[in-house]
């Protein structure tokens, strides 16, 4: 157990340089972007002198390291700057959206694993059967289908044609926060985008799990288990599954990264007010303080995902704990 804590602590310490590096990268990228929020957004009647004055006041003419220090200093206090488009602090803007995206991601992950684990297990256990071929066929289809097209089709069919699900927003207007109806409406709004994303996201995991199972099936220790007299179901449950699900835990970090990419498409298509939609809108409107904040948070989420992966893995894999 002590090893476990040591491992976790060390793993968390590794994150610090990762996050610093990320922030520097994002800062440099933000500075390299052509123009700034003042370039296009402000009344053309404002004179260039006045703009220059504004830039000076905002500290945009300071040397880069001062700007970086200012920026990081703000971040640490939860100040991501001002959104020029929404005329409000970025922190406030992000607040509710991050929660929306979080729930959308959780729902997507749940659907992903609900689909992937049984399909992967069946496909791996009965490999080369008709069932396996059908499941593998689905994964190929999933690989070949771009997420945004699939999300659009789902929206069209289940949102517009059948009308089973709302087609935009994250909650019905007029719902009272805290009521049961509010929660149900929230859930109702995220089911369709979550399923759309999960059906595509899951194919990686299905294939991965399938090949892990096929691989584990041929391991020597499975023979040992059979030679002990373990029944087929015991061989699967005790020996094959545990060993095959392990790498899936390691895959979790990758899944988070996929989700971040996925939310940008899906939230935009479903007009779902989350970080992905905010990112898309801010990019098109050059609302750079928002873009940097969102990218930074995406980066942190990916780093945290990898951390979570490693911790889960170290919990289930005794070989990692010792190292």
């Amino acid at each position, binding site marked *: 157990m002590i090893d476990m804590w040591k491992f976790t602590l060390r793993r968390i310490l590794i994150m610090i340089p990762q996050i610093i590096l990320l922030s520097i990268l994002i800062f440099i990228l933000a500075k390299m972007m052509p123009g700034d929020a003042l370039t296009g957004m402000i009344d053309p009647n404002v004179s260039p002198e006045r703009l220059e004055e504004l830039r000076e006041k905002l500290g945009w003419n300071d040397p880069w390291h001062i700007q970086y220090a200012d920026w990081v200093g703000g971040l640490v206090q939860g100040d991501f700057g001002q959104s020029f488009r929404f005329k409000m602090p970025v922190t406030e803007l992000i607040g509710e959206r991050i929660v929306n995206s979080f729930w959308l991601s959780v729902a997507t992950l749940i659907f992903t694993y609900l689909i992937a684990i049984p399909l992967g297990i069946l496909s791996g256990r009965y490999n080369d059967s008709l069932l396996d071929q059908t499941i593998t066929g689905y994964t190929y289809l999933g690989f070949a289908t771009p997420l945004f097209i699939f999300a659009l089709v789902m929206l069209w069919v289940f949102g517009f044609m059948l009308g089973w699900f709302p087609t935009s927003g994250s909650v019905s207007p007029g719902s009272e926060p805290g009521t049961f109806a509010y929660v149900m409406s929230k859930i109702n709004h995220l089911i369709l985008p979550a399923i759309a994303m999960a059906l595509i996201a899951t194919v990686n995991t299905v294939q991965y799990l399938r090949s892990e199972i096929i691989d584990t099936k041929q391991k020597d*220790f499975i023979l040992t288990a059979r030679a002990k*007299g373990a029944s087929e179901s015991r061989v699967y449950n005790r*020996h094959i599954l545990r*060993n095959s699900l392990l790498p899936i835990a390691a895959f979790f970090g990758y899944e988070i990264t996929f989700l971040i990419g996925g939310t940008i498409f899906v939230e935009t298509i479903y007009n779902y007010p989350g970080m992905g939609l905010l990112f898309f809108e801010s990019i098109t409107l050059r609302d750079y303080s928002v873009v940097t904040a969102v990218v930074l948070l995406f980066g942190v989420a990916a780093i945290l995902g990898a951390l979570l992966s490693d911790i889960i893995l170290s919990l289930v894999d005794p070989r990692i704990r010792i190292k």
Partner: protein
Amino acid sequence: MSEKLLEVKNLKTSFRIKDDYYAAVDDVSLSVNKNEVLAIVGESGCGKSALAFSIMGLHNRAKIEGNILFKDQDIANLSISNLNKLRGKNMGMIFQDPLTALNPLMEIGDQIGEALLLHNKDLSKTKRKEKVIDLLNKVGIPRPEHVYEQFPHELSGGMRQRVVIATAIANEPELLIADEPTTALDVTIQSQILDLIKELKDDMDAGIILITHDLGVVAEMADRVAVMYAGQIVEIADVHTLFEKPLHPYTRSLFNSVPNTAQAKSKLHVIQGIVPSLQNLPREGCRFSARIPWIDASAHEEHPELHEVSSGHFVRCTCYKHFDFPEGSSKEEQHHGIS
């Protein structure tokens, strides 16, 4: 007479490769008595493991023909659930590579305990743990309480093989199959493991099939020896007879390829080539003839059968009689000898 434990009759184990079946074990007959060690020797790829797996029912996609009588019950094509009543209880198996034979995610104690649990559901958890600790002691593992909670990667190869052995003998099986149990281990560890197996054999009165390609091991451990080549037994005899009077050219070649018996490398009658892969085995005629091309083709038998040359000594084919294999003769001399 000693009691017959296992009798294999005309066993043929075939694997499906593409659309054809290829026999990795072909027409193998042998028997093992209680408290007897039958060694099976042969080059790698000759079907030793395939034979062992057939007996244990561990092949999942092979065609098994012939009979495998374990205490008079034919287990050749027994259902998995019936087989599982015997596996781990009446028959145990020790595998070649201890580094891969244990589940990396399971504590040692649980892996050995599983063998107990599967065949005795009534055994309480504490009793089971006691028995596992006993077993760990028995196979010579120091600090068994500590090792009980360790994972395989924390143990050395030799220790892991002891764990594998403890698992195999957990329920005191009547038949123990050891498939090259020391091949993957250091020389010093090898003899320790062999001593352990010998000790356990006397202890349990078990019949043992010991698969090896090490004639030193055979000399030390075996009561009887079966020599396999390309899926077939080419010679079988008690250990003294076989060492003193090997008849089949392949058996002789095995003795000659042991470094310390060969006085000079140049004087060996060299067996050419390697064991052909399953698909490339000659479909008819003798499977071995291609490897001794210096012998006149007309001297070979068309369908070599096992012949009993003296009590309990069987040789495949009688044509060995035509050849004179003087000790240490060179292949030229031999060629001369037959023609």
